[in-house]
């Protein structure tokens, strides 16, 4: 177990190097020069050339990459081209907000998905099951930004129940209640698609399991239905569900980019969008590295969870 963990952690290094190379290349090879975007249409050639030189953009690509990577290895993610602020400070500052949002989204989609899936499986083809199938179709096919705007119009503009944007009250100094009020709309928006996927998967896995012989045996023994469904059914259905939840975690981290933009949630996603629009290379690279690291760690956690759920699984 310990050696497995060590190996997996070591594997992080090549994964992150790979991510860094890909992000670096995608950013630098895609059209749009940061100096050009920064200076706009009024720039003189002289200002432009000077700025490119100062930003280190005149060096060959591999030199720029090596320069960046050696700094990253020392824990220095560089300075944002636009904001002129240290990237690491900026990203960590925003990371908390993203964690709060994605964790809530993950919790909501997992709990909601399992509850919905189990209920549908217990009473297949019931009204609830059909309603959940229709809602799932909606949830899975609605783009995040559109769902977010619809929810915002209904719950903020029309009903006035929830704030439309931000993480805290505009004047500052909010408490937990304030945070929760701001969190509901973005978390629901973010969770919607994943929730439906988890619900559908839970339903089909549970249906499968509930028709197994050992379930019939459990029922024949006279166990209460709840115990049959949860202890005998759900626990055995959890392996595929956990796998999907792990994948969804990555999806949620990506979805946070859109959700954060719609709801002005001050997270890494919003920062990354600003960075991309400005072609702020070090900033975007920093954001992606941190998100990639999070995703890899979540997947590691999922893998470790398997052993707990199914004692037959062993790590070597």
């Amino acid at each position: 177990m310990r050696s497995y963990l060590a190996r997996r952690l070591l594997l992080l290094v090549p994964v992150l190097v790979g991510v860094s190379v890909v992000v670096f290349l995608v950013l630098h090879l895609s059209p749009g020069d940061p100096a050009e975007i920064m200076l706009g249409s009024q720039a003189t050639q002289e200002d432009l050339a000077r700025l490119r030189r100062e930003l280190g953009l005149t060096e060959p690509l591999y030199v720029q990459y090596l320069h960046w990577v050696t700094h990253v290895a020392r824990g220095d993610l560089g300075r944002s081209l636009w904001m002129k602020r240290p990237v690491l400070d900026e990203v960590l500052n925003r990371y908390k907000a993203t964690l709060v949002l994605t964790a809530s989204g993950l919790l909501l989609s997992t709990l909601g998905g399992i509850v919905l899936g189990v209920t549908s499986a217990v009473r297949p083809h019931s009204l609830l099951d059909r309603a959940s199938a229709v809602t799932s179709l909606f949830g899975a096919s609605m783009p995040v930004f559109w769902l977010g705007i619809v929810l915002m119009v209904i719950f903020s503009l029309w009903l006035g129940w929830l704030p439309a944007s931000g993480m805290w009250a505009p004047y500052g100094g909010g408490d937990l209640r304030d945070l929760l009020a701001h969190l509901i709309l973005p978390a629901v928006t973010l969770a919607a698609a994943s929730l439906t996927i988890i619900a559908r998967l839970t339903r089909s896995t549970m249906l499968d399991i509930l028709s197994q012989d050992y379930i019939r045996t459990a029922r024949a023994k006279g166990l209460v239905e709840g115990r049959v469904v949860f202890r005998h059914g759900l626990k055995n259905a959890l392996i595929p569900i956990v796998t999907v939840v792990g994948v969804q975690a990555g999806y949620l981290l990506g979805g946070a980019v859109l959700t954060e933009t719609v709801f002005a949630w001050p997270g890494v996603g919003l920062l990354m969008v600003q960075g991309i629009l400005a072609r702020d290379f070090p900033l975007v690279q920093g954001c992606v590295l941190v998100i990639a690291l999070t995703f890899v760690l979540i997947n590691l956690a999922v893998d470790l969870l398997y052993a707990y759920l199914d004692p037959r699984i062993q790590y070597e």
Partner: protein
Amino acid sequence: MPARHSFSSMMAPAMIVLALALSLAALPVAAQPAGTLLVGLVAEPVNLDPAQVTDLNSNRVGRRVVETLVTFPDESTQIVPGLAESWTISKDGLQYTFKLRSGVKFHDGTPLNAEAVKFSIERQINTEHPAYRLGKYPFANFFFGNVKAVEVLSPERVAFLLKDPRASFLAVLTAGAASIVSPTAVMKWGPDYPSHPVGTGPFRFASWDRGQRVVLEKNPTYWKYPAKLERVIYRPIVEDQARLTELLTGGLDLIVGVPADFVSQLEQNPKVSVLKQTGAHVWYLGINNQKKPFDDKRVRQALNYAVNKDAIVRDVLKGTGSLSKGPVLPGTWGADAGLKAYPYDPEKAKRLLAEAGYPNGFTTTMWVPESGSGMQAPVAMSTVMQSNLKAVGVNVTLQTMEWGAYLTKLRSKEQELFALSWMAGNEDPDMVMYPLLHSSQWTPVGPNRAQYKNARFDDLLQQARVTTDQAKRAALYREAQRILVDDAPWVFVDHEIQIAAFAKRVQGFKLHPSFDLRVETISLK
């Protein structure tokens, strides 16, 4: 079936937790501190040192903290004294001497003096200056490339020595890049100064929660008048619908950059007021004057007749643009009031094309950015122009590009037709016409992307540059504009109308033609 029953009862706790969370969170009512204005921005400022930024949002916040030697009154772009009480211009136009206001202090207590002025400008252009390395000054050359030196004559008198005479130099000094900053603060914070700006303005910097809010507080000892607001909180909200919802639900008091589609909706809403103001901006379809068939004036004029600008302004911009007759903003001192816009006349366009030898039209390419600073709705506007041109036989292929890539591509001479805009931020025609249309400014050296050249026009612009008398300059510019409209190097399209919407409690707000956002004029009911 008792077993089924017990299953439902096991689901109940989950529902209760959910309901509890909802009720706990419902309707938080935040106490509203007195005298606090909430302003919604379309994006977060990148930093608050106006010498280091180029975007409107950063400037709109940053310029509340710092001030310039000369400035604009609250409703126009005429030049009036700012931190300088008075000034003289030498006969040869090479030396501008300013007398500073006495007794003015920066927010950190540092006195405003000639040294601070020299510091603020020279940090951008003098590579030996101790603060040169502390920042990147994007427009240093555009604005101050012509400044040879800044000389301290006495603590209250400072002189700018120019390399060449430039009558628009006062207009240059109204730019954000010409803001006077506290040298003490710049040296104290070093590269982090843009997050801790210190100036002499009506508001001082208080705090910045990244991604959430920038807070400015009233400067109680402001030399001009103390602001009526205690505090201004700027909230960056990228999504249009969210910004609008916040305004209508009390999370914001004032928003600018209202999308065209929302304007009529807001105008009918009794909770808010809507304000409009044409800005010092011009949107044009550039034509490469040196490339066939556009080297023929008749072809360029035909394009002007063919494009239905009224329809673009009315249907695409929905009142967020006013028809443009030329590059200079109508109503300012340099504009020629007698200019006539090319009317929409496709028949005349066809005749002109036939006269020029293209009775069956021709095929060409139009480059368009997907978006960009000051570009309004580039793709929709260009699509209308494309269909207008097709109606007179000119088949246009639209090529849309990402803004940065677009600007890079425009540094060539390959362009045929291209959509672009210019925000001068002041009304001096020299700051629009010279860079965009003087033949010395052809790309790639300058921004004359239309490769326009007319000897008489060049000469008029040059004369107006070295003439200090404004009435004489105006006469020169009027003649230049008449030549320009006849030569038709661009299709003149529109000047952007800025739109602000604000809650009824906001009093005394005015939109500024320079696109500045002067919240210091506001009081709250």
